[in-house]
């Protein structure tokens, strides 16, 4: 049985349609990259999967249950947003919130909870700075803690919304490897929203491309082609493979799509 089943999903704001007729299923162990320019509903799709946004049409089922009923833990890794320098929070506390921050009351000290937090911190290699105030850590360190926070509750699904934004290449690779390792070991499927497919290209099973004039889903080699993207953008788009990287040329905003980083 698939973990996520998306059926005939549509999202409209007023008379603007972000996407419609969206159909796909996500199997255990699968990594789906969601690509596309800004304003095509990538983040909204994540919000729908989290149960925070109602679709205009269609349905989503996660392990047999609609997302807004929250039957299952979902690990969510957001865009890296730097914490305030003064916030009273350690990495350990952030991860702990991912475990039981939604529960009422003060919470009792339980050694098995502490052990889970410790294991999660170790899994992402954050043990060394787990007790430092989080506002004084680097963006890359904070984002590793975010991954630990998403993994600690043993989620059935991981949703990552531009988790690599404003990270340097080493930390980008680190975050991707952590999510990939989790998927390998536990079979937890990952939905990975990104404007640049290259950092995840080696681990991606399928790509969902959301464009202004439609969407396409399939293996990277099927979707990331000149034909498919030209159809989706309704204009001539060239998809080039340069040293194992995908470069898209000719989209109305190709600054934002699969841009090539400096020096690589």
């Amino acid at each position, binding site marked *: 049985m698939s973990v996520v089943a998306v059926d005939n999903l549509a999202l409209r704001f007023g008379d603007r349609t972000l996407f419609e007729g969206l159909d796909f299923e996500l199997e255990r162990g699968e990594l789906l990259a969601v690509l596309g320019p800004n304003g095509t509903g990538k983040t909204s799709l994540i919000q729908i999967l*989290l149960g925070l946004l109602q679709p205009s049409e269609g349905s989503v089922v996660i392990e047999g249950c609609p997302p807004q009923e929250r039957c299952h833990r979902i690990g969510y890794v957001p865009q890296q947003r730097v914490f305030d320098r003064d916030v*009273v929070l350690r990495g350990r506390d952030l991860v702990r919130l991912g475990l039981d*921050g939604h529960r009422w*009351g003060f919470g009792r000290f339980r050694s098995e909870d502490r052990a889970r937090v410790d294991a999660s911190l170790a899994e992402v290699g954050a043990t060394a700075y787990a007790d430092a105030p989080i506002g004084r850590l680097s963006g890359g360190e904070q984002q590793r803690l975010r991954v630990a926070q998403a993994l600690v509750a043993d989620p059935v699904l991981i949703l990552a919304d531009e988790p690599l934004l404003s990270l340097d290449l080493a930390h980008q690779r680190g975050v991707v490897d952590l999510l990939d390792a989790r998927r390998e070991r536990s079979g937890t499927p990952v939905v990975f929203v990104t404007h640049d497919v290259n950092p995840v290209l080696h681990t991606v099973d399928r790509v969902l491309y959301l464009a202004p004039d439609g969407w396409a889903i399939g293996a990277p080699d099927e979707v990331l082609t000149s034909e498919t993207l030209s159809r989706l953008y309704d204009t001539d788009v060239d998809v080039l493979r340069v040293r194992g990287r995908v470069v898209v040329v000719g989209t109305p905003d190709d600054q934002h799509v699969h841009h090539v980083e400096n020096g690589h």
Partner: protein
Amino acid sequence: MFSHLLAEHFVHTALWAGAVAAIVSGAIGVFVVARGMSFAVHAISELGFTGAAGALVIGINPVTGILGGSLLVGLVLGLLSLRGRERDSAIGAVLAFGLGLGVLFLWLYQAPATTATNLLFGSIVGVSDTQLRNLAIVGAIVLLGLTLLYRPLFFSSVDPEIAAARGVPIRALSVAIFLLLALTIAEAIQVVGVLLVLTLVITPAAAAQRLTGRPTLALLLSVAIALVSTEAGILLSLEKSWPTSFFITTISFAFYVAARLVDWNRGRQSRAPAALVTPGSGASAASGGATSA
């Protein structure tokens, strides 16, 4: 030096009233500071003043007026759940209007000048036994509320995006924290007065957050600083007969300055030796530089 005072009943009452207000203020302060609600504290407090003045005009207990005024504003601000600049300017507009209304009420009541002064700057030694009992009841409600809501409230204060994704009811918690804050402010007004509520709700929490990165320790420190400032301030004012609020604000500010100095000094020490670190200890220094108590 205080022994002769400690025999007096009114001193006991004042110390207990101060303790209740300080504990709840210090506790809620850590959430208020984490959510950046300092200006809202000031606004709710000023509307407490309007409520008190209104109560005097229609001839009811001013404490009821304080509670009514601050709860009303707290509810409105909580329901609006505004963010950033919009919240700032909306609060400013409401605050100014409320104060204007308060001035009218005082004029209508033909209040003696001391009434306004006591409201604005506090009159802890005038607390009656009934008032103390009410303070204790309201204080218990706030502490119970904070205990029940602790984890989701903390989650939504420091990490609202993930909290929402995990199903934490952000908006309901925003209303709840504003209502608990309004109750707290109504308590603090009776000790330090409308204009100085920030000294119990903001200053101790702001000092605590300089001293530690541990949330529960920050909570305890904030309560301790509020408590020591209030109790010491009351005793000193009885000894010296200067205004109580002066001593309370001065002591709590001294804690704040000291906390900043400690934090600054710690930052300096952890940065300075970085260049001298031996290769073997490099890994721990890289992250340990930020470690705090």
